[in-house]
């Protein structure tokens, strides 16, 4: 039986259908969650898709933070529920303080839409365990505000605690710091994705759901989507009281 995974739709979300498509490919049953609903319908995991929630005016992700569904997602996360934010979803998670740091305007001051390579720092997370190795993963980025920022102390702590989950890498697979052409937005320490301390909430700027089929030029993203789906399946099976309670 397919595991049910929620895909939140804010007004202005524009990767929700792509995310539903990729989750379906990865063997899940996607459940669309409307921004005004306060119930998560018993899903085993939640994805916040890309887009421009509420227009992304003022600051990307900030308005979405206050929507009813985000209150539910915050509770769900607090209870250990799995949450993945992609692009705008990552921005929303950061604004909602569900993951550390902030995503600032790209250093180039221009929107950047191109293929990048990222590498997973760890293969033992709910979002990466299905990846075969630490080889670079090719997938698109498409954002205007993706420059990862946190103060030095926070960055050190993130690295120490293994909360940096993806980094931009160059052809040779080495992390691409700000200024390196392989770093599309000037993110500090090449950070493309981070997790919360508990390890059940993660966000990344690149789009794995757009790289889930060979016909589209890369299926490197499918590993990330599958990781989430399999983790969700385990949760659904185990009925961890924490998660059950949160639902």
């Amino acid at each position, binding site marked *: 039986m397919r595991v049910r995974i929620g895909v939140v739709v804010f*007004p*202005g979300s*524009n*990767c929700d*259908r*792509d995310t539903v*498509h*990729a989750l379906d490919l990865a063997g899940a049953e996607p459940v669309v969650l409307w921004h005004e609903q306060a119930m998560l319908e018993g899903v085993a995991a939640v994805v916040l898709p*890309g*887009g*421009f929630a*509420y*227009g*992304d*005016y003022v600051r990307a992700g900030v308005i979405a933070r206050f929507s009813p569904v985000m209150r539910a997602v915050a509770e769900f996360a607090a209870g250990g529920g799995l949450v993945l934010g992609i692009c705008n979803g990552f921005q929303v998670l950061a604004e909602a303080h569900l993951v550390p740091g902030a995503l600032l305007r790209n250093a180039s001051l*221009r*929107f*950047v*839409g*191109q293929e990048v390579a990222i590498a997973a720092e760890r293969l033992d997370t709910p979002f990466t365990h299905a990846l075969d190795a630490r080889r670079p993963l090719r997938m*698109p980025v*498409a954002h*205007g505000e993706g420059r990862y920022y946190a103060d030095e102390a926070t960055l050190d702590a993130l690295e120490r605690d293994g909360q940096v989950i993806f980094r931009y890498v160059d052809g040779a697979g080495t992390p691409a710091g700000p200024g390196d052409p392989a770093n599309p937005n000037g993110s500090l320490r090449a950070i493309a994705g981070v997790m919360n301390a508990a390890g059940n909430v993660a966000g990344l700027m690149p*789009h794995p*759901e*757009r790289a*889930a*089929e060979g*016909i*589209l*030029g890369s299926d490197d993203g499918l590993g990330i989507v599958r990781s989430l789906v399999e983790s969700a399946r385990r949760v659904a099976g185990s009925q961890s009281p924490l998660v059950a309670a949160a639902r």
Partner: protein
Amino acid sequence: MTVAERAAEPLHRRLGVTDEELAAIRDRLGGRAPNDLELAMFSVMWSEHCSYKSSKPLLRTLPTAGEGVVAGPGENAGVISIGDGLAVAFKIESHNHPSAVEPYQGAATGVGGILRDIFTMGARPIAVLDALRFGDPADARTRHLVDGVVRGVGGYGNCVGVPTVGGELVFDPSYQGNPLVNVMAIGLMEERRLTLATAGRPGDLVVLYGSATGRDGIGGASVLASATFTHDDPSKRPSVQVGDPFAEKLLIEASLELIERGLVVGLQDLGAGGITCATSETADRAGTGMLIDLDAIPRREPGLEPFEVMISESQERMCAAVDPGQWPAVKEVCERWGLPVAIIGRVTADGDIAIVEGGLDADGQPRPGARELARVPARALTSDAIVHDRVASPPTHRRGAPAPGAPAPVSDQLPERGIDPGAVLLGLLGSANLASRHAVFQQYDSTVGADTVAGPGRGAAVLRVKGTTKALVASTDGDHAVGLLDPWLGAALSVAEATRNVSITGARPLGVTNCLNYGDPTRPEAFWQLSEGVRGLADACRALGLPVTGGNVSLYNESPAGAIAPTPVIGVVGLLEDIATLVGPAFVASDDQVVLVGDAQPGLAGSVYAALAGAAPEDDPPPLDLTREAALQTFIREAVARGLVASAQDISGGGLAVALAECAMWGDLGMRVRVPAAHSPAVDLFGESPSRLVVSCAPRHAAALALLARQHGLPVEAIGTVGGDRLVVELTGAGAIGAGDERSSRVADALDVSLRDLRHAWDHGLARALGWEG
């Protein structure tokens, strides 16, 4: 004209309505004079933009019938069936003048406008292509325009979540004071969802939803502001329209849901002419009238005057005809998507657009005391608008186009003396018009939607169709340089190139949309260019068996610096039945054979080479043989379908040498080829005569490929093999060294350049030209 003189002008002239047109308006009103509000409505509806009053007679000559066409010119967008119950909607439109004034908002609202044309038909927009033209890239104003337009296209398209998958960026001095911003949009729909822009039946509700109406784009009509109008601050009536892509995204989702659930009878987006245009066009199409309740129209700010409400061009609005029984559901959908929605009137049987103040009662009858402000027959505003017969006359001294097939004389003064082909090739690849566009399109989201198989950068765009084996292939192309010498040829070449770009992927072109960018039609020479352009468009489409399903005309593209080069921008959408057979332009394997299909004709005029190196004054552009072009495209589609082709690239800007360089750079594979030169190194390497391809194939397919080409009556020649990391070209035959000697030319026939050097020139050329990179 001084301010005082202008003030003295009669009102209609100040609104851009000529005395002749005023007379025509009177007789459409049964002899009576229009009141100010009616005059305002006529002035926008009889504008060139809304009425096509100069181009209508020409557009009637275009072929519009074709296999699978379910909607053609006259609707918001053309729609063609692609099987499996699906259909594709596509249309191109210009936003030149707004973009010249405010590049970001001009381009952004241009994208918004064409997207509305697509989803108004019931199709979900799946792609945008932007065809842009500017003046000198080194000029500060040009750089400001390019930067703003590119940010605007991205700012809007990226936010609404429609990928920008292709387009054009062309620099030519003639666009210095008048840039061109043409945007094409493509949508995918279930054929049964086709929704037409009709007013439905008498008694239906006229529903307006989307953004509230403000004082946007009132512009020239401001002269109507009543004396009592308190704040006369001009900034109160901005002529610049600001786009809200977030509102558009909501509009897309709400509209598609309304259509999906069958809640609307007819749908029309609001563009130029605002509510006046939307109500009169839909009423006219349905042969009905409309009674509009002015007070019911949601406003963004207080104090709008009736004429402002009626002609406002506020963005992100839609007008629907709704069966009264469906109103509650319609209201619920719009409100769920956070969109203001209101019943603004009723469809009537009398054929008039009537505007009342004071409200309508429950049965849509004016309340006691309500005042009628205007009453105009819908058709007088639209299908019965005035049509002008403009005078066309060719420029006094011009050389005729070479008759198709007739070899034009080879100029013996080609400016190739002493130029090393390798250096020329690098110069062409690094030139503003041929270098990689990635500095621009990496500011676009080209992959949202997860359907982009081939995005911007390497020929036609390819989008897979989920749930089928099919793919849609699209390209826009527009020639200006040849068109300046011969507008018929320029237009025909544009169609040939756009369709060829689609055919070389293996896809079958389905139809053509076009944006005709020309000068002031009251100038006989400009109108001659337009009519020749339309003739070229029509001839080419007939020769290729393609319907014209829609488009747009933009005239008065002139600045103090002069008129633009005539620029017909052609958009083509093609269908690839089995995406597994898709072929790209890049070489794929070492030892593959390189095959040249078609032959070079003399003539360098209008080529990029000529623009850079200068052409002999009496030189002609190379001829176009439309029958040959049709045969070539049929051939390549067949060859691809039979699996004979590894890669296929057409020869266009920069000629054979640039085509070969692209195949090599993009495939990261070099080649060694010997090219039979019939004319001279410049013509054979850099000439742009059409109907030619560079094809690569596995050696075992070479014979079959050549045979197939001959069966289609096409010259074909295996010129060498793929491999290595250099592009090595030798010229043989009459046009090579011999020809060089005769002209005591120092041209080295051999061209030998490393891929690294080619790539370096090509990668950085544009950013350098625009000063985005040192």
